[in-house]
């Protein structure tokens, strides 16, 4: 079959240099092409270039052929006006911002419907039914709908002009796992019914594995590997693809140590000559540092391609040595450190409580998880434990009567906002050491403990990558020697390859310092790699708790079953 969308020689050039370099891609009717890559790899810019939505100061080069019509991408919005919406449509990440907040959903869907005026209402009704929404949604405003419903409205709006190709830029990343699955199932059904091609942009390998026929891997603005999904992920040729696959934590088993890629994702224009991946690649040699490989190497049938001088062979790629930890036992810890009993907290009278009769125990040196979807009360629980939020009812009992700073410390999701930008790393850590009554000269040791070079003490947070900043935040939290380290979504703003490093660090710190960990996360696979015992929260209540091993193998509660079943690609 001929491709319905074919892009050749795409360059996206920004004020600092190329953002995407020489990308070719094609997708056939009814098929799904996933573009995967970490932050800054150029996925969204590719989508924007194809829809003529590049920000000012950024322009594209190359050609796109849609359904046989060839267009020059350098023409931007004007050149693409002929295909935009009508043949190629875009679905954005955030359903909370992608619809106009002051217009009703019906007219927003109707805006690009090609039907006579008096048939609009019927057609809107039909389109809503197509995305499994009731008729009344037409007269509702977006803010009256849940995230999943909004994304369905957005989907109906994207499809109103019956495009041949739908590009989804992280279309489900902002949604909860259970909703994510529903929306992706819906897109798959519509694809089948309409014979529509789908370009799925995602950072989530699990989603790509489950949904795509073919995968393109991008790194720092380059396409580094291409191939049919199962083969590409089964036997990656490019070391980056292999690293990305291996750092993605599995749900079924707990690894002693997650494979990770050293360093962090560079910016597309910030790389010297040679292979973009060379600074992080174990196989790099002299040639890699001088000559840039192109997506040339192909296998016998030409379907797969990679940009690497020393590709992995079947055997090397398939083997990742893992040590599994021994199963942990069920039940309460023998030496409780902190006990929360019957905690209740309600913020608004017209909303359900954030915490509804929650009881948890964290034992000395134990790693405990609190998992649940957005709004389930996880963060509120953590804040109450830290004394940052009060309880309406219930008790928090600490076994040891120690100063607050040495009882518990917290690590937040966004390290850049948690660190004072005006303070050097050394000063911030020194301050934290003093707060816990420790010797402030221990800063170098602290940096080593979290795997950062000692000279970093002189730097300010802005000069560090996201992963490095999170290491500093962790160092600052463990500095006063707390009994328990509370981590609220500590890796959810980090790239997969960096996430693995941080999860390994948390495991090491726990072993070395005898810390207890309370890990709060929406990501079950992340929790799986760190915690022994877990509490599953849903709408402010703990619906199930027990050993992680047991919950993965045999979840009891209906909600837990649904939650675990929704995890993509496993």
């Amino acid at each position, binding site marked *: 079959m001929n491709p319905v969308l074919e892009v050749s020689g795409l360059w996206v050039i920004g004020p600092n240099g190329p953002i995407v370099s020489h990308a070719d891609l094609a997708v056939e009717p009814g098929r799904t092409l996933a573009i995967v890559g970490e932050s800054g790899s150029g996925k969204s810019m590719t989508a924007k270039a194809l*829809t*003529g*939505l590049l920000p*000012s100061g950024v322009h594209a080069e190359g050609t796109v052929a849609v359904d046989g019509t060839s267009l020059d991408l350098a023409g931007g*919005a004007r050149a693409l*006006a002929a295909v*935009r*919406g*009508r043949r190629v*449509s*875009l679905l*954005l990440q*955030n359903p909370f*911002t*992608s*619809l*106009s*907040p*002051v*217009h009703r959903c019906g007219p927003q869907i109707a*805006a*690009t419907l090609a039907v006579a005026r008096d048939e609009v209402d019927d057609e809107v009704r039909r389109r809503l039914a197509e995305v499994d929404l009731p008729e*009344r949604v037409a*007269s*509702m*405003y977006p*803010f*009256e709908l849940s995230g999943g419903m909004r994304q369905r409205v*957005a989907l109906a*709006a*994207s499809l*109103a*002009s019956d495009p041949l190709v739908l590009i989804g830029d992280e279309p489900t990343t902002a949604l909860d796992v259970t909703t994510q699955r529903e929306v992706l199932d819906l897109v798959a059904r519509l694809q089948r019914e309409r014979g529509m091609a789908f370009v799925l942009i995602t950072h989530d390998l699990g989603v790509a594995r489950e949904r795509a026929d073919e995968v393109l891997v991008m790194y720092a603005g380059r396409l580094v590997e291409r191939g049919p999904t199962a083969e590409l992920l089964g036997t990656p040729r490019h070391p980056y693809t292999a690293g990305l696959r291996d750092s993605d934590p599995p749900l079924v088993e707990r690894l002693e140590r997650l494979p990770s890629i050293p360093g962090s994702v560079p910016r597309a224009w910030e790389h010297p000559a040679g292979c973009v991946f060379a600074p992080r690649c174990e196989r790099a040699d002299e040639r890699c540092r001088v000559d840039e490989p192109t997506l040339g190497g192909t296998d016998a049938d030409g379907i797969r391609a990679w940009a690497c001088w020393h590709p992995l062979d079947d055997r090397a790629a398939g083997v990742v040595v893992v040590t599994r930890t021994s199963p942990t036992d069920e039940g309460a810890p023998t030496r409780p450190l902190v006990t929360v009993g019957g905690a209740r907290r309600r913020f608004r009278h017209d909303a359900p409580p954030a915490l509804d009769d929650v009881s948890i125990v964290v034992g000395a040196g134990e790693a405990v998880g609190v998992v649940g979807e957005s709004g389930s009360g996880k963060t509120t629980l953590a804040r109450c434990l830290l004394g940052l939020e009060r309880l309406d009812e219930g008790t928090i009992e600490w076994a040891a009567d120690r100063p607050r700073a040495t009882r518990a410390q917290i690590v937040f999701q966004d390290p850049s906002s948690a660190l004072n930008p005006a303070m050097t790393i050394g000063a911030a850590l020194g301050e934290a050491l003093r707060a816990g009554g420790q010797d402030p000269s221990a800063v170098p040791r602290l940096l080593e403990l979290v795997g950062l070079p000692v000279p970093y003490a002189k730097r300010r947070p802005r000069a560090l990558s996201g992963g490095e900043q999170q290491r500093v935040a962790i160092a600052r939290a463990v500095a006063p020697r707390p009994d328990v380290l509370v981590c609220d979504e500590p890796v959810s703003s980090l790239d997969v390859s960096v996430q693995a490093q941080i999860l390994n660090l948390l495991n090491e710190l726990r072993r070395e310092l005898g810390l207890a960990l309370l890990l709060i996360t929406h990501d079950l696979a992340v929790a799986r790699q760190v915690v022994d015992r877990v509490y599953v929260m849903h709408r402010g209540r703990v619906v199930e708790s027990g050993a992680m091993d047991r919950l993965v193998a045999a979840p009891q509660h209906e909600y837990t079953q649904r939650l675990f079943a929704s995890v993509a690609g496993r």
Partner: protein
Amino acid sequence: MASRLGRGTLGRFVMVRLAATVVLLLALSFVVFALLYLAPGDPARNLLGPRNPSPELLAAIRAEYHLDDPFVTQYVRWIGDVVRGDLGTSIRSEIAVTSLLADRVVLTAELAIMAFVITLVVAVPLGVRAAWRAGSVFDRTVSLASIVGVGAPSYAVGLLLLYLLGVRFQLFPVYGIGDGGLDQLWHLVLPAVTLAIGIGALVFKLTRTAVLGELEQDYVAFARARGLSEGAVRRLVLRNALIPVVTSGGLVFAFLFGGTILVEVTFALPGIGGLLAGSVTFKDIPVVQAITLLTATVIALTALAVDIVTYTIDPRVRARGLR
């Protein structure tokens, strides 16, 4: 959920906001009344003005104004009079404050409204256009002009306009209010333009910022990606940008009312502004009290109007309703 957004709630919203406005004004009136005591010197002497009073006269004043009653009793009596439309007697001219204000209010209101209309008709479209073509020559020119407009003191602008359009080219009358009716409006054009320049520059900036902010929103990118025409995208953006523009527009109107003072003096117009300037110098406390109260009322009512308009154009505010 949609049913909660029914029409019945607008009436309730207005009632509650109105009640809040009345409470606010009562509190303000208390402060205004206290002006008499906050002004330096003996209240009785202040009420008599710069005459040299005999002890009998002072005693008479004390009795007339009940100055020996407890403060609260005095306030209650005073506010009762105010509600009945009696704002006391001017010390300077010895006429009732109400009749002193009556003609002047009309003039000031005409001036303020005219300036407001000029501002809206000119500044809002300019702001929209500048935001739509951010960075263009048009945008940079108008933005630069607006910086000058915000910065220039209104009396200087007024004098310049007077000189150019009034004296040099004799397009507009330079002085006074004319013979009423259309001629009066004609006389008010220059002062209104003077007022509108500073305020208009502000409204221009507010509009430009609001529209620029909306243009960066995801829903605009999404609308374009779906193939909406540029005209349709514009309607979408303007409807959203209307909300911040209305909110700030109301504040601007309230500000205008106060801003007329300097302009009235420059153009020798017998409005509230001229009266206030004279009365402050003369320590004509009843008049100052009346004008302060009037201005506060206009501001409070404008805020009320803004709330009601916001309520009708922003469905999110409607859904939140009364809290």
